[in-house]
């Protein structure tokens, strides 16, 4: 990718994760567009104002999951690469890889430092709590669906 032209679209619902990742990639020389969920991501890609070449998305990209967003991108914009991350660690690793492959010859800092910053801002236990809430939500949806399939009461 040529310097200054490539846009990375970050899809992440948590500002304390999204913002440091976006800044990290900007420091690496990328132009970065930020979306809080898959719906915003699809709108930004469809609108075409930014030349997006890579999508770095959380697996839980809001109400629509990251896999669904990835499928949509591959079907409608096959020229765009999609990187999915299920954890903050994975997201920072992928951002680090982008920096290594990116337009600047030297990367300003290791992805581990970004991870440290994110964990610091999230404060101890808070990230785990957020992830647990997401899992509970997903399990809740599945439980409701299964209960409905069995004809039983739907429990959240």
């Amino acid at each position, binding site marked *: 990718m040529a310097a200054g032209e490539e846009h990375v679209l970050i899809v992440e619902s948590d*500002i304390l994760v999204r913002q440091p990742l976006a800044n990290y990639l900007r420091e690496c020389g990328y132009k970065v567009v930020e*979306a*809080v969920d898959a719906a*915003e991501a699809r709108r930004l890609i469809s609108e075409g104002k*930014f030349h997006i070449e890579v999508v770095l998305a959380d697996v839980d990209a809001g109400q629509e999951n990251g896999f669904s967003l990835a499928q949509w991108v591959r079907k409608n914009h096959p020229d765009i690469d999609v990187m999915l991350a299920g954890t903050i660690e994975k997201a920072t690793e992928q951002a680090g890889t982008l920096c290594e492959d990116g337009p600047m010859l030297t990367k300003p800092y290791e992805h581990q430092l970004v991870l*440290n*910053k994110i964990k610091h801002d999230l404060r101890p236990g808070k990230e785990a709590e957020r992830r647990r809430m997401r899992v509970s939500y997903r399990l809740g949806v599945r439980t409701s669906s299964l209960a409905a399939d069995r004809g039983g009461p739907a429990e959240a």
Partner: protein
Amino acid sequence: MMNLPEIEPRPEEGTRSVLIVEDDALIRTGLADELRDAGLHVVEAANADEAWTYLETGARLDLIFSDVQMPGSMNGLDLARRVKENYPDIFFILTTGNVGLVSIQVLAPFLAKPYQFSTAVEYILEAPKK
């Protein structure tokens, strides 16, 4: 406690840090892009709750430019009140298409929607430094 390395691009001396709070992704990303091109350090929040979460980290901010009507537990007016009370050094600008809200002008300087990005950038650049 271990000192964390600086991993965010620190605004150069005199560079202002601006937080854009806007739930419309096209407006938020478009305005943020223009402000970065103008040399500002820009943080993007999609609603007032996100903005508050960011503020609570203690990150330095000079100015907040916020929409009024947004999803979440707070709207832009609530955010403006909380920022005035807790972070009085941050300059706050509100924007909305609902210009009938009389309480806006009392709370903060105000830019009517729809606006051109260039107008908003000029408005933000000309805001007095606290």
